[in-house]
């Protein structure tokens, strides 16, 4: 199991530890990399299982299709690189050679979102959830902490069909979960009936912190960790919309077509309530420290509190 003694861990580290465990548990697990082996934390697997590690060099399209060939041969491939390249650069390869054939290929995009920091726009993936969830058969998972990343990786290896895992670069605190992590099952972390905040990835712990401060203002926010934007846990989302009457979504991703849009698509059809989608609007990433960028793109705890309050006011009108 995962060592949680430090209280925090990046999701990429959780993934890397899981790969190591999978290497021992399943001889069919194969890891592919595109020259970013240590950055995506595949180097621990490489050291232990060199015969099941393939470096494609800077060739993401080739890597994704090779993963398809391995899956067709009964292997359990994990193809890893930065999210920007995994999802965008090789999108047609994922569409035709992975999703269309519904293969057991696990695509791992680390360095998702603006918290990549100083590398700037080209390396800050803001579109992966959109690009992946539009594809039939694809499962999209955005773990919120190192433990979720660990468990998501272990479960992805056994899941039928392709999985896209979106990972982050920086350390995030471990969450206090109430139930076992299961891909596709949203987790309600905090109860509340005034407003629902649905978050994924690094935005989950920020939302939990925001909920504590909202409580001081007499607003009871329900916090849902929607680590699986696809397939969507409709039951949990609909129940929350009915019981709280307002839904705020928060993601470190383009506000268009991401996790929030997935929630909005469901609610507009089955339970329309006032909503606001927090994310990056019509903007590429920029260089800066992660904390500077959270402020710049209005994705801090204070921003979440402000938008939650605004939604509660809208609801009452």
């Amino acid at each position, binding site marked *: 199991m995962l060592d949680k003694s430090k209280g925090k861990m990046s999701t990429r580290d959780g993934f890397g530890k899981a790969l190591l465990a999978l290497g021992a548990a399943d001889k069919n697990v194969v890891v592919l990399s595109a020259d970013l082996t240590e950055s995506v934390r595949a180097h621990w697997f490489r050291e232990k299982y060199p015969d099941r590690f*393939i470096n*494609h060099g800077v060739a993401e*399209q080739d890597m994704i299709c090779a993963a*398809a*060939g*391995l899956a*067709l041969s009964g292997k359990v*491939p994990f193809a890893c690189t930065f999210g920007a390249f995994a999802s965008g650069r090789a999108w047609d390869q994922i569409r035709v050679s992975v999703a269309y054939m519904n293969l057991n290929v696990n695509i791992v995009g680390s360095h998702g979102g603006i918290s990549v920091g100083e590398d700037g726009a080209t390396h800050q993936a803001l579109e992966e959830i959109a690009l992946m969830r539009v594809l039939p058969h694809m499962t999209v998972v955005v773990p919120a902490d190192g433990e979720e990343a660990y468990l998501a990786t272990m479960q992805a290896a056994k899941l039928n069909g392709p999985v896209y895992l979106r990972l982050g670069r920086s350390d995030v605190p471990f969450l206090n979960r109430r139930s076992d992590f299961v891909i596709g099952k949203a987790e309600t972390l905090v109860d509340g009936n005034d407003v629902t905040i649905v978050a994924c990835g690094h935005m989950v712990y920020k939302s939990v912190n925001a909920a504590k401060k909202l409580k001081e203002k007499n607003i009871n926010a329900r916090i849902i960790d929607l680590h699986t934007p696809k397939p969507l846990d409709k039951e949990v989302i609909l129940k929350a919309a009915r019981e709280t009457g307002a839904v705020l979504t928060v993601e470190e991703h383009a506000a268009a077509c991401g996790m929030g849009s997935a929630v909005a698509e469901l609610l507009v059809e089955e339970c329309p309530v006032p909503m606001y989608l927090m994310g990056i609007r019509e903007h590429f990433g920029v260089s800066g420290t992660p904390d500077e960028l959270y402020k710049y793109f209005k994705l801090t705890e204070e921003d979440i509190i402000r938008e939650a309050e605004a939604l509660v006011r809208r609801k009452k009108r």
Partner: protein
Amino acid sequence: MRDLLKLKKKAVEIRKDVLMMLEKAGSGHTGGSLSLVEILLYLYHEKMALKCETFKCRERDKLILSKGHACPVLYAVLSDLGFFPREELWTLRKLGSRLQGHPQFGLPGVEISSGSLGQGRSVAIGFAFADRIDRTGAKTYCIMGDGETNEGQVWEAAMTAAHHKLDNLCAIVDFNKLQIDGFCCEVKEMANYRKRWEDFGWLAVEADGHDFIELERAFDKISGEKERPQIVIAHTVKGKGVSFIENKAEWHGVAPKKADLEKALAELDAAAKELSRV
């Protein structure tokens, strides 16, 4: 070669099937299907000796049609081998048919979905890696079009296969010198084509892609290679076998009309008769 005359006769029959399928479908890729007939027949009947009963077997040799638009000829050959009923050929491109406009994984005999060019070679690399890990001894053959090698991914894969010394991987280029917009060399320069592959670390050989004996010689030359991936550059004629379709770029993505079909079948019947006289 087990039975050269039989293969030659089969080539005529396959060409007829391809043209009849395309005429019934009303659309599809004629030129690049006809250029591939002998290559596919040689691989399926002589090289891989693949049977439908052994298709699921892990140790089988695999054939990937990366130039998926040439699927009519793949379907005709697979059906002839018994992978699915011949009547199904006439459902090509129709709603509900397993014979999609480009090959779809799931149809018996079809190893992968293909059609977006340049991807098959990389999928073949995945097969080759898996066969190496599992020591199956199987070989993967991947057929590409010449125009397809405009794709950058083809050269990514070329580097990967050579670097990892995937000697269980063999590519075949259907070098018919034409692509949709015209002569390959006019769309994008193809000079020193064989040398390009050699420079990328491949064992490259050339052959007349319509001559079974030459194909056999080429594949004999590369068999037993223990270091490099191999490529057979098969010189072919786009639209081969039908005089008015041969060597015309405009027949890349056009199906024969009823009158074209009648003329073409008459030519092919005459060719078959000629073979029977031998």
